[in-house]
């Protein structure tokens, strides 16, 4: 995703001289080309994220489109009040980009796990929260946040994720992409879990469960129409994110379904518990530890549906 982001950003900077990139002394090997080609629109603010974000707001209030860039929680939590007051309150045209969303920096430890970001940023007024699912979505998301006037958060994974979308996509902020259709259940995925979600949906499909898969690249504003249609049409909704189960995609969908009055819907959130990881490991290892492997997800979805069917049968009899 990182490569796709920078390729798109370079193109956008070529087309629009308002585009600026402000980094917090991170991005070795990836920011240099932007700095070389657009030296007057590049800035390394140093290891000082509060100032980086304030500067970005000041530049944006002077007519620029400003991308701030760092890894994991540094560009958002370290400077959260600057994000809230300087960026969101002023409706400043700042796009915050974090590489290493979720457990991408797994082995680096809990300081580098960005696992509450969606929940926290989702609660800020005016903030658009985007977590693309693959490099194709990342390219489209980078262009979409540049066009959107106002604060955006772009949560990227790492470098080298597989391309999930084989053809072109219709990417609109706040509008889910339906990756496949199905009538038995819906799996809603955000961010880098998309590849896993495709595999889970494929496995379930082969086992006779026709699975609708939505890539919910925009967590806020949430595409409530797609979710409610999925609840009505498939009766079961599962959310999947590399994020705490508190307040992220799963939280947002739960809020929506609880208030929607769509009748009884089977619903479950897949994500991380609200704890700090106590084991050391790579992204893949930590995902598996937390039940986010293809096998585990498939098994839990099947058992949840079976349990529910059994319950429904009991209540009918």
């Amino acid at each position, binding site marked *: 995703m990182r490569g796709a982001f920078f390729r798109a950003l370079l193109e956008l900077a070529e087309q629009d001289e308002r585009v600026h990139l402000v980094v917090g002394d991170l991005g070795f090997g990836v920011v240099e080309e932007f700095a070389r080609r657009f030296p007057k629109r590049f800035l390394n603010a140093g290891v000082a994220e509060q100032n980086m974000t304030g500067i970005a*707001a000041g*530049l944006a209030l002077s007519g620029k489109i400003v991308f701030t860039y760092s890894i994991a929680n540094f560009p958002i939590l370290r400077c959260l009040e600057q994000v809230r007051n300087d960026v969101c309150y002023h409706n400043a045209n700042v796009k915050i980009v974090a590489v290493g969303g979720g457990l991408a920096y797994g082995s680096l430890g809990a300081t580098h796990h960005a696992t509450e970001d969606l929940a926290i940023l989702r609660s800020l007024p005016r903030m658009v929260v985007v977590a693309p699912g693959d490099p194709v979505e990342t390219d489209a998301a980078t262009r979409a946040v540049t066009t959107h006037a106002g604060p955006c958060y772009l949560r990227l994974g790492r470098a080298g994720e597989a391309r999930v979308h084989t053809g072109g996509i219709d990417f609109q902020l706040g509008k889910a992409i339906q990756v496949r259709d199905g009538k038995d259940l819906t799996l809603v995925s955000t961010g880098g879990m998309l590849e896993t979600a495709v595999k889970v949906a494929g496995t379930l499909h082969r086992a006779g469960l026709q699975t609708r898969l939505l890539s919910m690249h925009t967590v806020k504003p949430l595409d409530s129409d797609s979710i409610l249609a999925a609840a009505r049409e498939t009766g079961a909704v599962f959310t999947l994110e590399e994020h705490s189960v508190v307040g992220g995609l799963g939280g947002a969908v739960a809020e929506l379904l609880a208030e929607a009055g769509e009748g009884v819907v089977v619903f479950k959130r897949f994500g991380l518990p609200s704890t700090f990881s106590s084991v050391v490991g790579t992204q893949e290892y930590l995902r598996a530890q937390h039940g986010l492997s293809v096998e585990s997800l498939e098994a839990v979805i099947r058992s949840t549906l079976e349990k529910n069917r059994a319950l429904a049968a009991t209540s009918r009899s």
Partner: protein
Amino acid sequence: MRTARMIHRAKSSHLGSAYSMADLLAVLYGRILRIDPKQPEAAERDRFVLSKGHACAALYAVLAERGFFPKDWLEDFYQDGARLAGHATHVGVPGVEVSTGSLGHGLPIACGMALAGKRDGCGYRVFVMLSDGECDEGSTWEAALFAGHHQMDNLIAIVDYNKIQSLGTVKEVLDLEPLAEKWRAFGWSTREIDGHDLAQIEETLTSVPAESNKPTCVVAHTVKGKGVSFMENKLLWHYRAPDQEEMTKALAELGVEQ
């Protein structure tokens, strides 16, 4: 005078903080800033950022005096449904560049504005008013380091050094001395002045940047609650709103006929 009435009516606070910078604001808005109340968003305007947003009553008063908005807006300051909030707010208030209130935000934003001006080749200057208390904030020093490094000679920081912060004197809470030397060490051209000597303020702010290729820091020695004898240097007036009797006394001391 208007500020005292606003705070009295509203039963709000921070009168002492407003009065310590009132002379600085008067010179800035009277003689220094290149601004046009009729075009508050003109691209070439000088920017003024009130980083110590809690003292906004004085800013609102001076903006109204300069004609950025009608003076009657001041009358319901801080009250239910009013236009003007208890911390500097840009929403719907012409002339307020940036909303502040949480300390340590103004200087970084001002750095961004000054950087945009430099890179765009615009001649505007950016002035920031800081409190001494917010020199406790790390973000202030992140920005100070940045501005010095980037030789931002279109940026002028004024520290309203009234030497009293929220729970005590600066010396007791977190001593800033030697304050001017700290700014100098961060790459700023620094001057220390009497923040109530109008001629000295004007002379200092007219000759910025004090050195080329350096941001300017003016450490203005001020008196909290300046102008009203019973408020001067009193921590209480960081919080207290004057009652009717105190208002009468204060306005008399300020030379206002009632």
